[in-house]
C-alpha cells in the first residue's frame, strides 16, 4: 500500500489531462447509450421521430454536460 503511494507521488507531468481522460469515460458511455438507443427507437417507430429526437438531444446534453464540467474543473481547482 505505502509502496503504491510512493509510486503515485513520483508521477509528475500533465496529470490534468489523464484526469480528464478518466472523467470522459462515463459521459462517453452515456452518449453512446443515448444515441444507440435513440437510433434503435427511430428504426422501430419512424413516425415518432420528432419526439425521439427531442428526447435524444436532451439526454445527450445531460451526459455531455458531465464531460464539459470535467474540462472546466481544472481551471477552477487547478494550480
Amino acid at each position, binding site marked *: 500500500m505505502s509502496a503504491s503511494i510512493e509510486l503515485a507521488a513520483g508521477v509528475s507531468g500533465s496529470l490534468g489531462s489523464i484526469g480528464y481522460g478518466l472523467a470522459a469515460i462515463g459521459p462517453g458511455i452515456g452518449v453512446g447509450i443515448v444515441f444507440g438507443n435513440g437510433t434503435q427507437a427511430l428504426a422501430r417507430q419512424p413516425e415518432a421521430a*420528432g*419526439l425521439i429526437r*427531442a428526447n435524444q*438531444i*436532451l439526454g445527450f*446534453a445531460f451526459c*455531455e*454536460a458531465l464531460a*464539459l*464540467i470535467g*474540462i*472546466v474543473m481544472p*481551471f477552477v481547482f487547478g494550480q
Partner: protein
Amino acid sequence: MSDNGCGFPAPGLHSFLFEPIADFGWFYFNKVMLLALLTTIVICVFFYFAFGRSKVVPGKIQMIGEAGYDFVRRNVVYETLGKKEGEKYVPIMVSLFFFIWIMNIWSVVPLAQFPVSSVIAYPAVLAAIVYLIWVPLTFKRHGFVGGWKNITGYDPSLGPIKWLVSFIEFFSNLLVRPFTHAVRLFANMFAGHLMLVMFTVASWYLLNSWMIPAAGVSFVMTMAMILFELFVQAVQAYVFVLLACTYIQGALAEHH
C-alpha cells in the same frame, strides 16, 4: 500563460479575460459586453425587418424570421407544454433561443471570435430568469403546501423512503438544477472556444520548416471544429430553451 518549455502559447483562462475598451472608473466596458450589446441590436434589427411590416405573402427576411419563430413554437414549446398552456411562454422562449444562439455564434464570426456565453455571468443570469419563472409558478399553481409537494416529489405511496426521495428531489430540483442549467451552456461554449483557440494558435505555431504539414493538419482541424461549433451552438440554444420548457412543464404538472 502555461509554458511547457517549448514556447507554445497554450490557451487558458487568460483567453477569456479582456482589457476594458472604455473605462469610466466605476464601470468599464469590454469586448464581451460590446458583443452582448451587438447581439441585442442584431436581434432587434432582424426582427424589425422580419415582422415590422409583415405581409400576408412573406418576403425573404420575413420567411426566415417566421421559420425561426415557428421552430421554437412548434418543436420546443408545443412539444413540452402543449398548445393551451404553452402559448403564453412562446415570446420568452423565442427571445431566449435567439439571444443565446446569436451570443454563441460570435464564436466563429471573424474579428469577434468570442462566444459571449462562455463568460459564466451571461448563462447564470439567463438561468436565473428561468428559475424565477418556474419556482413562483409552482407555488402559484399548487398553493404553498402543494408547491412544496410538487418540487420535492412527495409521494406517500413510496412508504418509508418518501422522505429520502423528497430530500434528494429538493436538493436536485431547487439547488442543482439552476447550476447545471447555466453551467451546461457555459461549459459547452468555454470548451468549444478553448479548442478553437488551441487549433488556431497551433496552426500558426507549427508553421516553420519541417512542421508545415502538421500546421496544415491543425488548420484543417480548425475548419472542422468551426463546423462542429456551428452545430453545437444551435444545439445548446435549443437545449437551453427545451430545458426551460421542461422545468415550466414540471411546475405546471399535477403531482400525484
